[in-house]
């Protein structure tokens, strides 16, 4: 099973994501902003990173940009969790290096389906 990093400033959101993924047997770490996530990501290679877009300290898009610049995260799927249904926000995330997105609202099944999709 995969090592997954869940990044979101909302505890409830993070809780839901982590709970669901752990339930599916994944090893999940949590971070509450982009900066903490980066620190954690440098410490160990994750198979998948799920990141909220709007976060204090460091937002999701800046985080993706920095994370993608790390050699060990080349090719690692990074998904934006976004409530933005507008394409420009998604594209901004993509331009920063995100693999794709998961649009809130999503239920646990959708989350798992998407995670399984990127993990292959």
């Amino acid at each position, binding site marked *: 099973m995969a090592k997954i990093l869940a990044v979101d400033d909302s505890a409830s959101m993070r809780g839901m994501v982590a709970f669901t993924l752990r339930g599916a047997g994944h090893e999940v770490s949590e971070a509450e902003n982009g900066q903490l996530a980066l620190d954690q990501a440098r410490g160990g*290679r994750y198979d998948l990173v799920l990141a909220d877009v709007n976060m204090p300290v460091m937002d999701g898009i800046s985080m993706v940009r920095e994370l993608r610049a790390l050699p060990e995260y080349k*090719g690692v799927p990074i998904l934006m969790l976004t409530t933005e249904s507008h394409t420009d926000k998604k594209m901004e995330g993509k331009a920063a290096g995100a693999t794709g997105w998961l649009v809130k609202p999503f239920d646990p099944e959708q989350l798992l389906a998407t995670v399984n999709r990127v993990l292959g």
Partner: protein
Amino acid sequence: MGSKASTKGTPVAAGVTLPADCRLGALDALAPRLREAVAGGAATFDGSAVEKVDGAAMQLLVACRRAAAASGGGVAWAGASDVLREAAGLLGLAAELDLPAPMPA
């Protein structure tokens, strides 16, 4: 993660055992060893331990076989996992990579 499996296995002439995780993140470590192996023309790859693979790795393997062939040699397979064979099929590279048929168990 990485390539701790890479030095295992009986050393064959210019042989490389592909690690369990053969994805993009592991290729920076794997690629130099593959390049070195095919530099002499003939090489043997063992892909029987591969559990995870991606398009980038498959592309690298194709380039290795082509490089070996170009220098008058070739890459022989000491084995290939189901994962590797499935990937070759999906990417339309089965003929190009010429992976061995599954070993009868």
